């Protein structure tokens, strides 16, 4: 379970570019919940995830994960609990390394790195099994450099790497935004099946309102660093994109800014 308590983050404090990215944000994600996050440009969606990951420290507030205070924990030490997939398909994998090496590093997420061989007996069989479910033929290319894969393939691989060690929380930051529609749909399908099968608590930022409605058990909308809409259950299932836009202007007092979200 994840808890954000009064988390505030201001960028460029004291300059004319000062921007309050998170404003006393309070949010609780229950165990096993799949929450989708939408919001206009600059609403604080990515900032919220970066706060959870520890890319920087918040100005104030607390972040609890399964009851442990992780507010001050360095990024690489939180990794034990978190699976991450980025918007940029290049970010989640090491291009110069082989597919199996990337998987092996992910299999050791948050563990101490020893002087034993990276890939040990029996591991390859396990990776073949994991990869074959992607249906991309990667199971036959274990020793190929990840840099030779397409964006969609890399994103699918990143997803696998993020979930294979059963994270306490899976963080998806617009992870299909950089893919073509067909590949995006495939990666989304894969996301849903991996999340459900393994019952992983998930926080998914998306630019796509339809996806935000279709996937997950709960939807939150961010605006100016605060949650302005929080729906779940039947209410969420019955939402439509016009509903969301109406609710946005009602709550925020302005039009939704983000063409991509409305048009797609």
């Amino acid at each position: 379970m994840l808890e954000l308590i009064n988390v505030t983050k201001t960028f460029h404090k004291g300059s004319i570019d000062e921007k309050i990215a998170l404003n006393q944000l309070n949010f609780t994600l229950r165990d096993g919940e799949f929450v989708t996050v939408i919001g206009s440009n600059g609403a604080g969606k990515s900032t919220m995830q970066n706060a959870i990951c520890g890319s920087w420290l918040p100005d104030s507030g607390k972040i609890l994960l399964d009851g442990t205070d992780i507010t001050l924990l360095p990024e690489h030490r939180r990794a034990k609990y978190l699976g991450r997939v980025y918007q940029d398909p290049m970010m989640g994998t090491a291009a110069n390394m082989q597919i199996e090496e990337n998987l092996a590093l992910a299999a050791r997420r948050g563990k101490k790195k020893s002087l034993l061989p990276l890939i040990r007996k029996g591991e390859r069989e396990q990776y073949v099994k994991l990869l074959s479910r992607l249906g991309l033929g990667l199971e036959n290319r274990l020793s190929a450099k990840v840099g030779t894969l397409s964006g969609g393939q890399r994103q699918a691989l990143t997803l696998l790497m993020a979930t294979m060690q059963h994270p306490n929380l899976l963080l998806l930051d617009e992870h299909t935004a950089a893919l073509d529609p067909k590949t995006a749909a495939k990666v989304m399908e894969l996301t849903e099946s991996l999340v459900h099968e393994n019952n992983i608590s998930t926080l998914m930022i998306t630019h796509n309102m339809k996806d935000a409605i279709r996937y997950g058990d709960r939807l939150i909308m961010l605006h100016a660093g605060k949650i302005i809409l929080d729906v779940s259950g039947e209410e969420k299932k019955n939402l439509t994109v016009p509903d969301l836009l109406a609710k946005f202007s009602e709550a925020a007092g302005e039009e939704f800014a983000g063409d991509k979200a409305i048009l797609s």
Partner: protein
Amino acid sequence: MLNYLSALPGAVAQGLIWGLMGLGVFITYKVLDIADLTVDGTLCTGAAVFSVAMIAGVNPWISLILAILSGLAAGALTGVFHICLGIPAILAGILTQMIPWSVNLKILGKPNVSISFRTYPVLLSLSNPPRAILVGVLFAAGVIAMLYWFFGTELGASVRATGSNPVMCRAQGINTNMTKILGLSLSNGIVALSGALLCQYQGFTDINMGRGAVVTGLAAVVIGSAIVNKLSLNFAVKLAGVFFGAILYFLVYQTVIFIGLDSDLLKMLSALVVTVFLGTPYVKKELSKAGSIRKGGNSRA
């Protein structure tokens, strides 16, 4: 001509010794993706520590270990400057290049110390090129084997991953500060070993012996990768390629000297060779881009 031919075994031996230096550069430049200039200082530090230890009567093998340790420490210091003080790697390297210069002078006590094979039990010397080549090959093989093993371990793979994608590393729980310090340290340890062998080979340690060494190391790396990259992508082959690069470099060097080129120009020539090798891939890419636009294809709106 006979003179020239008799100089070739020496060039091979020098190539093997400098190849070790090249491996150090390979680790930072190719694996970690950091341009580390500390190596100019550590080459001499390794030589200084070795010569002083040997003159004090320490066993050559133990002197060698002391030299390696001094290099490991210098590399770690660059890492700490870079990581903890946020100084860009290239500047941190320049700083830790200056520090050894003073330290080296203090270690040596004077700018030039002789460790002639006539007086000291050195492992190799230019007076005996076949033996120098043999020793060089053994060290090369040993260090290649060690690096091949290390970069295949969990820890070594983390260092490689740090050079490839630090963001991904942190998401996988790898402390990239630690892996960078480790890589820099390892690199400079090997460079110090190279310095310790070099001073034995030439029979003296000079305070300026490391000046511009990084260029020679880079030359070995870029020439080496140009030779072997088409043959195989195996990591051990890539490491061995650095030695081929270094040997070729010194063979060409000897040839140029034999032809009678002004030796004052040699450093410039080395730098130009490295420039050509480093710049070629970029220029090629730009040219092919321009080519495809002219053909009218592949335009991405």
